[in-house]
């Protein structure tokens, strides 16, 4: 029994301790000129779909959930965001070359088509981020159009 008590105390102390670790937050006030929505002049329905379903992890501005301030959730989220941004950052879209853009667009279409994005772990909490069937075909159609002009 004593051992368990000691372990419990250690875990508790560690848990409290890690709350003091600071992480940088992925937030910015301005929309850069290289932004995907801006560059491609997305209509409002597409714009809101992209922002709700993609931009939290694939742009320089995340709408953080309330629980993000609790460690180790923060780490987990920041990790996700930095991975997501490394793969695709809509805020810096127009810095990519034509070839890279075409290549990314193709991957975006495939990911949405295959229901691989948005991630299920994300839509679990962000129910509104899930694409309905109609939304899915709308957004794929729009992205396909952009791809055709590349």
């Amino acid at each position, binding site marked *: 029994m004593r051992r*368990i008590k000691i372990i*419990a105390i250690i*875990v508790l102390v560690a*848990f409290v301790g890690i709350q003091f670790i600071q992480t940088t937050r992925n937030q910015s006030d301005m929309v850069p000129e290289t932004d995907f929505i801006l560059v491609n002049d997305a209509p409002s329905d597409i714009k809101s779909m992209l922002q709700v379903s993609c931009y939290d992890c694939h742009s320089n501005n995340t709408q953080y959930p309330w629980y993000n301030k609790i460690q180790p959730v923060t*780490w*987990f989220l920041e990790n996700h965001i*930095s991975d997501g941004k490394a793969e695709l950052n809509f805020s810096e879209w127009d810095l990519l070359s034509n070839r*890279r853009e075409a290549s990314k667009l193709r991957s975006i279409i*495939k990911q949405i088509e295959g229901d691989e994005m948005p991630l299920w772990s994300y839509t679990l909490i962000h129910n509104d981020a899930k694409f309905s069937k109609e939304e899915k075909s709308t957004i794929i159609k729009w992205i396909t159009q952009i791809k055709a*002009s590349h």
Partner: protein
Amino acid sequence: MRNLRVTTGVLAMAFLALTVMSCKDSKKEQSNDEGSHTEMSAFENNSEMNHDNSDGHHDDEEKMYACSMHPDVIGKKGEKCSKCGMKLTEEVKKAHDNSDGHHDGESKKMAMKGNGASQAILNGYFNLKNALVADDNAKAKNLGATLAKSLGNLDVSNYTDAQKADLKDIIEDAVEHAEHISESDIDHQREHFKILSKDVTDMVAITGTENTLYEQFCPMYDGGSAWLSMNEEVKNPYYGSKMLKCGKVQKEIK
């Protein structure tokens, strides 16, 4: 006491799980600079293709586009290829600033085609292709990683500025696809292989190659997909054993 034990257990498990997840290792580092710089001095320079604007005119207002399968067919945006009916999608680069008449690269024209590193890339690409032909997911993973590495080793210093920019762009794209191939299932590998094939084809157009290559084309996979092969005989990397013979040779690259 029981309560305490349960709480402890839950806390410890949650803590462990999250710690493990957040500690998963970050991006692999890319080794760009190690490795073969051996036969670097010898390379082909396709100045004929890229230097023909010595008249100095750069009318950039109207971009021209070429067919992705038939680069010699050129037209305006939205037009279709006269040979295959596909949309003209490849922007034709109005090449660089050499209106002063100096063609630095041209004077260095070498007899040998290709260089060591680009040959290593091609070999890696063909090995990968063969693994896909054989439906071998695990082998393709390894070969994808190998290819990503040899792509990083391509030395572009001997090319003209415009070629350098193109090559860097191609390599960056190709590395990403090769890396994805090193960690996906076979369907994904094939999707990435399609774009990788285009990248490698574009690379060969700049670097040249020692061997005769065959550009082959399968009209069925994903609305039509091309790949390169050393052999004239068609073995389809997009379908493997399911439709091994689907496709035809559409171009010879020498």
